[in-house]
């Protein structure tokens, strides 16, 4: 097309133009819709629509790479293979509405079982009380009807010795 010197000169001219355009107009408008860019990549746009896209791409040279990549996406198989974990993560974004989430079944205890449990506790307390009372009464009776030591002991229980005061009294009387 052109020689090396011409090319350098032409490149300089182009850059000069681009800088001037950026200076004059500031930021370009919003990016075209992805569908519009895709249609452009497949050469499906009419002249007017294509011109609009081209004007935007001229201001955003990096978008040209996207258009080229999109145009090549239908050619040949893809070489990248995502990991199974990445696939599972992406699939999990949509859940199956028919799937019933695992939930522990609600355990509703029947009334009769609650009643049985309460009666059991009450009966246990009653039995413990009765047995304890019976054991205590037996011990008391055996102490009363026992030998001498037992009677002394029982006497002490009801009529304890005066202790230190009684000994004072004995000493003072002598």
């Amino acid at each position, binding site marked *: 097309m052109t020689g090396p010197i011409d090319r350098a000169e*032409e490149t300089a001219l*182009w850059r000069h133009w681009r800088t001037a355009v*950026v200076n004059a107009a500031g930021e370009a408008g919003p990016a075209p819709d992805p569908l519009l860019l895709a249609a452009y*990549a497949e050469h499906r746009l009419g002249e007017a629509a294509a011109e609009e896209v081209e004007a935007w791409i001229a201001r955003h040279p990096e978008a040209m790479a996207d258009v080229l*990549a999109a145009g090549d996406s239908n050619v040949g198989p893809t070489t990248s293979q995502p990991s199974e974990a990445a696939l599972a993560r992406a699939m999990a974004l949509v859940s199956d509405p028919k799937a019933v989430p695992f939930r522990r079944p609600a355990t509703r205890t029947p009334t009769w079982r609650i009643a049985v449990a309460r009666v059991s506790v009450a009966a246990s307390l009653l039995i413990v009380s009765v047995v304890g009372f019976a054991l205590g009464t037996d011990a008391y009776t055996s102490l009363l009807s026992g030998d001498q030591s037992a009677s002394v002991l029982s006497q002490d229980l009801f009529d304890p010795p005066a202790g230190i005061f009684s000994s004072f009294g004995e000493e003072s009387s002598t």
Partner: protein
Amino acid sequence: VADGIELASLIAGEKGAWDGFVRRYAGLILSAVRALVREGTEAEDLLQEVFVRLCKDDFRLLKTYDPARAGLSTWLTIVARSTARDAQRRYRPPQSALDDVPERFLAVVDAHSEPLKLPKDLLSPRQQLVLTMLYERDMDVAEVAKTLDVDPQTVRSTHHKAMLKLRAHFGPERE
């Protein structure tokens, strides 16, 4: 139906259709984003981000796809690369080549200089695009012709006319 995918089922949120869609296009999307980011988890994170974008707000983006206007693979590649660029802008500090930064932001402002007066539409969008491809992406004429789906001679002619206009405009200024 687009590329064998039941779009209606997909948009309706059917789990089977979604799983089939993910299995079929995950490789394509990963290839598209890998060209822009590092290998490994970053690419797979972007893959997930693309799928999130597609199904977000009750498949709002996916519903905009129209099989009559473009192929699903082409559209998905554009969406994937756009998502990757958005992510790059979000996570990385903005960087630009020195040549891309207007001189007024770099140099001391010359109080006597006047802004360049550019005739509106000096170059047509097609001419700008051809020059962008040739001088910024270093593509050759054949590649440009293939990309634009035109004859190589048309590219040469477009380039020639554009250069004439630029020389005519900047010539007196540079002399």
